[in-house]
């Protein structure tokens, strides 16, 4: 007989359904980093030198919207939306 699930998830990573550039992804862990977002959004046209503007919305209450800088991370929430773009065109 299996134990009922508990609220604390010892030994099991949380999963979150999020949107990156209008595409759905399911990611694991409490947080997501700049690099992880970069890798998920990259269709091959970006390299390590590419400057990107990464913003998130619909995140957690105390700061649901913001910008992710290189080396940064943000706490995951179901339904979060990420926008990842080079913003150099004028």
């Amino acid at each position, binding site marked *: 007989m299996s134990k009922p699930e508990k609220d604390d998830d010892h030994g099991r990573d949380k999963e979150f359904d999020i949107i990156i*550039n*209008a*595409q759905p992804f399911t990611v694991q862990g409490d947080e997501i980093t700049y690099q992880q977002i970069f890798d998920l959004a990259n269709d091959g*046209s*970006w390299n390590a*030198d*590419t*400057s990107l*503007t990464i*913003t998130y*919305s619909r995140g957690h209450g105390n700061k649901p*919207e*913001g*910008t992710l*800088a*290189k080396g940064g991370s943000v706490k995951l929430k179901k339904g979060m*939306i990420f*926008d990842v*773009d*080079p*913003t*150099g*065109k*004028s």
Partner: protein
Amino acid sequence: MSTQLVNRSPDLKRLRDEGYDIEVLQSGHLVVRHIPYVSAEGVVLRGTFVTPLKMAGQRTAPPDDHTVWFAGEFPCHADRSPMDQINAGATQQVAGEIVTQFVFSTKPASGAYADNHLKISRYADLLTHAARAIDPTATPKVFRPIPADQDDGPFHYYDTASSRAGITEVGRKLELGKVAIVGLGGTGSYVLDLIAKTPIREIHLFDGDTFSQHNAFRSPGAPSLEELDGEPTKVGYFATIYSKMHRGIIPHPAYVTGDNLEQLDGMEFVFLCVDKGAIKRVIVEALEARGIPFIDVGMGISLVADQGLRGQLRVTTSTPEMRQHVWESERIPFEDPPGGNDYGLNIQIADMNALNAALAVARWKRLRGFYIDHEREHFSTYKITLNGMGNEDQL
């Protein structure tokens, strides 16, 4: 005509802003043309009021005479009976080149007109009321375009929009001497469209590109095929258009490079609207060294298969009070965006260029104190799919 006298005199300013065709002669007479009235034959004609102005220094004083002179035939009611009640005699008067035939007199209930707007509009209303019975569109408020004096501001014709809204004075916060737009692509051209309507004295345009057919679809206005065939430079094309309104549009048909940075000397503000990243680093360093505040803009739009377009607009602000975010948080991309101008990889849409430009210009106006600024952000993003703005690097 002295636009300064008109601007300093609330009654004359109000007459002008309401659309009356006014002129102040050297002799100190106020002339108001295009007054509709009914002739003895029952036809609607246009006449002219003339009245001497009483002055108090550099502006008008309350009129000391309630009468007005009239050039035209004697005005009638709609039934062609003459307006005897205002007739004060068929006395000829001369003001400059104008000869008037009649003098009208009607006093307001208070006994005297407090200013020239009350006086002129009272007489104009009397005559126009009769004219409207025959022609309902008759009006003395014709809004004839008023040229501005050579030494009276940067426009060829006075900014009556600000005047009518009562914001000329706060608009003076935008009276910079020299502003530059580097890059007259989609976003730069919309920046020009907006700042050409502000009282900046000189607007310098820097771009080495030619204006091509595809540029027409992300610029303000609408060129003809002939204009495109002329293969104008971008700066030449836009200078021609905006010089119709603004005296100080100065085109520089060459890119800003590391070899000609002295062109930026003396600029009081710069809008950086270029695609190339490497030159941006050079320009940003030059602007910082010269203590010049600037705004850098950029966008990234991509096509998502089976869905549509999405992306972001960016506005980065840098002033002597706040520079380090540009470097520490990488708020400006200093390498070329992927794809360059390659077919299929450079998506820019006119409304997004316009929005990016409008956000940049509005940010500049908050820096100048034209708009109140509670946010003081130095990095902001607009997310198309969310219709959301995000602000960072608040001062």
